[in-house]
């Protein structure tokens, strides 16, 4: 299952080849039924009109017609369901694969990607692939099956009509492709502008408050109207050409039907053709073009799928991180006593390292605060420690109580990022993300350790209070303490916190800082912070400047 295979539309199509194949076979069988059904109909009509039959004579034929009809309809229904099921399974599989891949890429690899964009790709983007598999691919296959079937039948009935259909049929895709390329060219030229104008409305909506603050809200109405008009003009210039493809199709379809009818009419008049064949050909002619029409209607499905695929491939193409902190190390779990960075050079571009030959050591029971101006490499240092960013040079190692050095120890870290995330669910559910088996006593214990118990118990529903983006609002400090409690549930040997007090008021800051100091006892505690409240709790302060690390006991004067 983990073999990625070919992650293109082609590759995906192959993956559900069995489902799609079954759908095409069922659809083909339905097509056979359709042709037979029309043949029976032609016979009935001809018998009634020209052979003096009455309805009661045709009962057998009618019964057969209805039977064929029912079978055909059921086959088609089954074909649609099979194609739908295949594509549903595929899209679900792609979605979980992509999500898993994103987890492999990790947060550092994804730093350049907007979350909203990724959510759109995972949601609507993957959904946009489905019509490609349910409509475009089966219809592409039917475009071969049904016309050939009809053509075979017509050849059997009438040479002239065969020539007409056989000539016009292949011309259609050729002309449609010609027009289609032209449409694509126009589209490509306008793409940028379309994209920009297309998102202008959302942009204005998001900026309404800003516009009001500038006193420009009234102008926004005219601006939106103007941009919508420009969007319309641009879109129509593309559509004018795009609609020609269907006009071409209609042209050939109408022309062929008209030709077949007129040519047959002349020969019927001469008595050189029989009515039943003529009528059947007339019935079959629209069916000959129907798959083409259906196919061209699903052209958008392909267009959308191709566009969506670009976004999907781009995410799949992100390289997986080399270090996987969520994979448990196999080393015996002797507690760590220190972590050392030795002569570490690290950064995101080889020619511009953020940290240059930096060295520092973090030890147990000595809460270390890392400080420094923004952009100086605090986040880089944290990512290095977390193992999310491999050093370009030097190494990061941890030593345990028995003096053994470890290179892989990241699974012993408890990390609270600057903005901890709660999932939509109860407080207990959020805590249990760290340990699904934890009982309420364990939850209470860690909550108490993180100074979160009192506020949780003050909530009307306690641990069952629903939180998260759509839940009850907790204050920033409460979220921090809850997140701290959550990592403590894993009993980490290393505790790393990124700016835990950045957005808190002084009281919240004091409270969180105290909780952190308390929780760091018996662990290697590393905290990135600016604020004096947090720095005051530190046993050691590490300053970053110019890619270097300056560490010392807590005597360094530091103003926020």
């Amino acid at each position, binding site marked *: 299952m983990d073999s990625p295979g070919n992650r293109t539309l082609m590759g995906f199509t192959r993956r559900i080849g069995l489902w799609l194949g079954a759908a095409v076979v069922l659809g083909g069988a339905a097509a056979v039924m359709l042709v037979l059904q029309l043949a029976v109909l032609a016979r009935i009509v001809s018998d009634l009109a020209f052979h003096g039959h009455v309805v009661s004579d045709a009962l057998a034929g009618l019964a057969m017609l209805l039977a064929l009809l029912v079978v055909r309809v059921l086959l088609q229904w089954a074909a649609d369901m099979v194609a739908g099921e295949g594509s549903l399974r595929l899209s679900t599989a792609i*979605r979980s694969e992509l999500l898993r891949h994103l987890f492999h890429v990790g947060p550092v690899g994804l730093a350049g990607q907007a979350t909203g964009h990724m959510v759109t790709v995972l949601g609507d983007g993957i959904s946009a692939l489905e019509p490609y598999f349910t409509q475009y691919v089966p219809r592409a296959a039917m475009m071969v099956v049904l016309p050939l079937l009809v053509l075979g039948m017509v050849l059997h009935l009438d040479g002239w009509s065969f020539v007409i259909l056989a000539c016009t049929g292949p011309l259609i895709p050729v002309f449609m492709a010609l027009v289609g390329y032209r449409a694509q060219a126009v589209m490509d030229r306008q793409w940028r502008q379309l994209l920009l104008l297309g998102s202008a409305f959302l942009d*204005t909506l998001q900026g*309404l*408050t800003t516009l009001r603050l500038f006193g*420009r809200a009234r102008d926004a109405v005219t601006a939106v109207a103007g941009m919508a008009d420009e969007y*319309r003009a641009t879109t129509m210039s593309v559509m004018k050409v795009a*609609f020609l493809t269907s006009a071409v199709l209609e042209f050939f379809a109408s022309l062929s039907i008209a030709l077949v009818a007129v040519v*047959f009419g002349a020969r019927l008049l001469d008595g050189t053709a029989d*009515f039943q064949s003529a009528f059947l050909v007339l019935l079959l002619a629209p069916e000959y073009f129907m798959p083409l029409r259906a196919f061209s209607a699903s052209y958008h499905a392909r267009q959308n799928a191709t566009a969506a695929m670009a976004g999907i491939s781009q995410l799949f193409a992100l390289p997986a991180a080399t270090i996987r902190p*969520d994979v448990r190390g196999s080393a015996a779990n002797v507690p760590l006593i220190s972590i050392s960075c030795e002569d570490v050079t690290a950064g995101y571009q080889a020619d511009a390292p953020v940290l240059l030959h930096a060295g520092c050591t973090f030890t147990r029971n000595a809460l270390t605060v890392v400080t420094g101006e923004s952009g100086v490499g605090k986040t880089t240092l944290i990512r290095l420690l977390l193992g999310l960013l491999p050093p370009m040079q030097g190494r990061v190692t941890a030593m345990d109580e028995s003096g053994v050095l470890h290179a892989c120890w990241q699974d012993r870290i408890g990390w609270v990022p600057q903005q901890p995330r709660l999932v939509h669910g109860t407080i207990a559910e959020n805590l249990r993300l760290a340990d699904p088996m934890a009982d309420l006593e364990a939850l209470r214990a860690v909550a108490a350790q993180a100074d979160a118990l009192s506020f949780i118990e003050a909530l009307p529903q306690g641990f069952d209070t629903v939180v998260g983006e759509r839940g009850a609002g907790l204050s920033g400090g409460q979220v921090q303490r809850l997140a701290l409690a959550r990592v403590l549930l894993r009993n980490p040997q290393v505790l790393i916190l990124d700016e835990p007090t950045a957005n808190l008021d002084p009281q919240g800051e004091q409270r969180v800082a105290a909780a952190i100091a308390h929780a760091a006892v018996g662990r290697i505690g590393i905290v990135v912070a600016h604020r004096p409240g947090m720095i005051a709790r530190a046993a050691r302060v590490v300053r970053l400047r110019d890619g270097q690390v300056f560490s010392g006991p807590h005597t360094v004067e530091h103003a926020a």
Partner: protein
Amino acid sequence: MSMLARIIGHMRPLRRQMALGLALSVTASLASFGLLFLSGWLLAAAAVAGLGGIAARNAFNLFLPAVGVRFFATMRILARYLERLVTHDATLRLIGRVRAWSISRLAPQAPALLARQRSGDMLFRFVSDTDRMGQFYLEVLVPVASAAICCVVFVAVMSAFSLSAALVLAVGLVLCGGVLPGVAGALSVHAMRRISRQQDTMHADLTEVLQGMGEFMFLGAGQAVQARIAARAADIRTERRRVALIEGGARSVMTVITMTSALGVLAMADMACRTGALSAACLPMLALGGLAAFDVLAPLPAAWPLLGQVHMAAGRVFALCDTPPSVVPPALTRCPDDPSCLSLSDIGLRYPGAERWALRHADLSVVRGERVALVGPSGAGKSTLVNLLFRFYDYQEGTARFGGVDLKDVDADIMARHVGVVAQDFHLFQGSIRRNLTIACPTATEDAMWQALRVARLHAFVQAEPAGLDTLIGEGGVRLSGGQARRLAVAQVVLRNPAWIILDEPTEGLDAGTEHDLMTALLSALSPRTTLVCITHNPAVAARMDRVVRVEGGRFHEAGRAP
């Protein structure tokens, strides 16, 4: 259905174009029907004439029906092409109108609206909802109206030959076009609604999971959160399967009804033939016509569910647009004579739906040229000052005067002339740096823009960019760093050169060096008569103001005057 009536109301200015689009659609469908109908007759009549001997053969005029067939063929192509152009154009116009209208309705309730809908999903959905309202014309109204008109014509044409055949056709058409999609729609409506809800939930879950990915990985919860998403996806899959089953069933029944009706028409016509009311040549024509008539119903199964979606979309759009602004605009606005001093006395402001007062018994007075820092715990009501001044939210108690005028007589547009604000959650517009500066101040010259950028400590960056002021900053300014974006927002306000400037956390996201430079440049660039209010957490920023006011417990406390 009043929703639809309101959408139709928005269509009124476009009614000519929309009627033209509908007429073209009807023409195309009728031509299509005519083509098959006439072809059927042509074949049968020619066959009858061919069987009838030389005299009948010579009497038969093949030329005229042949011309008719070609005429219908050409007509169908032309009408279809024009219909597409006209209806799509009208749709885009309609969307544009709805959007412009909605902006005019949403603007007065801007910050309150956004505050109520935190996640930002709402705006995305609003955009697609307005799109959907436009599609109402293209994908619901035109197909349904066109089908209805065509069906009447078809039945009328049929009745000219045989009344009973026409009756059979009418019943078939009504079953197929009206009853069947209605039933299928009713069966699937709940599933559709559940799907849309579950999709919203999944999007929100995905957002949470992606934003918290690193944290979840270190919690060892990566698998668990992925499983949560998978469970949502499985729910959606079940519902989608049900909808597909219903839709497929409806299509199948439709095909059966089509064929049965055609056969019914044939049987009725045959009976008419027996009585001599019809010639045998008409039988194939009517049978073919009976089949062709159902083609106009083909888009209807898609139109019905869409109607439900349009209804929901319009409901959401109108509900949002109809929300009365939280502050009733003053009947008669007055301009502050001297926009220099603000005095609040005994102000009480409570946000709608909140239990707690944001401000209560609050007094504050700021005079021209003062530099005031507002400090205090988060959530204490510091940002409420902006909401109060711009009348984004109403105050329930006390009196507030700005430049000698009661705030109740002032609206945001007037206030914007005197007060410039860098909000904490400022928005940068997509496009260039120049565009953003122009939005802030439409009359600004290029020199003024550079000057403002210099004050905001952004000029070096812009100069280094090859495109200079025309550098594109991406959606919401994503191509700028957080600090650069904030400095651009400061430049916008500096460019406006208002009498008052309110900065909400101006140095958030800046390092100490840049923060110091920015505040120094700003303070030296402002005329001494400009009033500056700084809302900040940062003691270094507060220390540079003349006066520090602490906001706590819904009141303003004088915390000290700098020497």
